[in-house]
């Protein structure tokens, strides 16, 4: 039983990280019709920026996450302005131009990997944050890094929710996500809101990268694996649905952890796809997805 609880706790905290990346992917898709295939590399950049900033400044962990989110968010904004903006003018999503966006995404992901390789080399580096002794809860030993993951992720998710529901800027972002022409007629600076939206999506991935850093090593290829799992999470929850992305992330994390614990750790990366296939067979639009897409 303890073994089971341990696995679930590990699965939930990893799932939170998947959920955070999936949330960014879903957020960008729901707002801009961009299926962002370079999101794993944004996550990787966020982690490396965390490592570098920590090395030179020694910031505290929450501040480190914040700085990495801001810097990576700005990089995301630059990427969107330089590359995606030209393509989204012709339409996105499942349109013909949407194909171009997907190809551009893969291209950007390769370019970012190689840039990261040139800067940080192929070596896996640790993100040395010390959290102190693990917490003992009865028979369960809980490393504090897991608590950080759960806590920070919850704060970010609630923060995003409150931002979208309660603030003027959030309202404008939702308006742009639903329909750009109508948003223009409201007097909203649509290009600026698109940057805000994309930047937030990328900042969430950066946070995930810095959160996973102390548990796993930080390396150039860390983005490919998470991209696939985050996509599985987003699709399981219902693509473009924000709470769905988080739920999907948790399910993927727990499935993976239980599978690795009870079946075989060698096939750890496969279990997410069993879940994905099972969900798609029962509910093709995802758990919280609807057939008619209602955005914003």
């Amino acid at each position, binding site marked *: 039983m303890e073994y089971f609880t341990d696995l679930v706790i590990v699965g939930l905290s990893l799932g939170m990280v998947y959920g955070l990346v999936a949330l960014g992917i879903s957020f960008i898709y729901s707002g801009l019709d961009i299926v962002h295939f370079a999101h794993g590399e944004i996550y990787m950049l966020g982690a490396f920026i965390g490592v570098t900033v920590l090395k030179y400044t020694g910031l505290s962990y929450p501040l480190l996450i914040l700085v990495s989110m801001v810097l990576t968010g700005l990089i995301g904004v630059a990427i969107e302005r330089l590359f995606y903006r030209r393509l989204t003018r012709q339409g996105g999503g499942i349109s013909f131009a949407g194909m171009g966006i997907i190809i551009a995404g893969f291209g950007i992901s390769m370019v970012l990997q190689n840039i990261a390789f040139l800067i940080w080399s192929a070596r896996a580096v640790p993100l040395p944050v010390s959290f102190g002794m693990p917490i003992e809860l009865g028979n369960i030993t809980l490393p504090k890094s897991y608590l950080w993951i759960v806590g920070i992720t919850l704060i970010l998710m609630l923060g995003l929710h409150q931002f979208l529901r309660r603030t*003027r800027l959030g*309202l*404008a972002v*939702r*308006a742009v996500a*639903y*329909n750009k*022409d*109508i*948003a*223009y*007629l*409201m*007097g*909203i*600076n*649509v290009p600026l809101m698109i940057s805000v939206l994309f930047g937030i999506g990328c900042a969430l991935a950066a946070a995930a990268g810095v959160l996973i850093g102390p548990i796993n090593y930080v390396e150039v290829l860390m983005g490919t694996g998470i991209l696939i799992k985050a996509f599985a999470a987003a699709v399981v929850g219902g693509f473009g649905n924000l709470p769905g992305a988080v739920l999907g992330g948790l399910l993927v994390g727990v499935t993976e952890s239980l599978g690795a614990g009870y079946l075989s750790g060698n096939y750890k990366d496969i279990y997410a796809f069993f879940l994905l296939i099972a969900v798609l067979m029962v509910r093709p639009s995802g758990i919280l997805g609807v057939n008619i897409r*209602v*955005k*914003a």
Partner: protein
Amino acid sequence: MLELDKIEAGYGSVQILNGVSLKVARGQIVALLGGNGTGKSTLLKTISGLVKPWRGSVRFDGEPIDGLRPDRIVRRGLVQVTQGKEAYPAMTVEENLRLGGFARNDRAALKRMLERVYEYFPALRERRHQHAAVLSGGQLQMLCIGRGLMSEPKMMLLDEPSAALAPQVVLDIFRIIARICREGMTLLLVEQNVRMALLLAQYAYVIRDGVIHIEGPAESLIDDDNVRLSYLGGTVADRGESLTAHR
């Protein structure tokens, strides 16, 4: 106040507007009439900046606004009121209205305008915290007009406020439009409901095949058979309408 000079515009390589010129003076209600596919919507989008004109000029308040980004045009006081179906369904009535006032940063002014809109449309106040998705067609149209008022524009472009509404509701909405204009609004009213539009407006243009086909003072156009013909394009419905008119 608004002056269009030989506007040509279209989508991709398809030209829709072939040189439209029209004028709206301050405080006036001007009707723009025309059937489906005559270029009415394209003309509105060209004025509000969603479509860039290929040739010609748009002047508002004496300054050229063609080529400006749509949100900049809104900030200058020229607002396009969308059709009712283009309210944000997943947002509440009040959120929709607040969006309409997005161009204004002045909280006190927004609060005052919100009160004024609720006073024009009491039905919206009752449903202020409900999602726009549950409103009736008439209420949606009211919401969009209210949303347009929120930024306190100098002039509004109204896109078919009577579309798909019951006659009684159309009457209610036109009464309020008339009131808003009495209180100092300038209006370009795009309509398919020819009679209602001509009763409200002082001057009217009829657009056909992307050019202004007929223009004149509204009262002189009400009984003009050319307007009906040009508007309906000689369909069966047109003959029916003519029969009742001449009985």
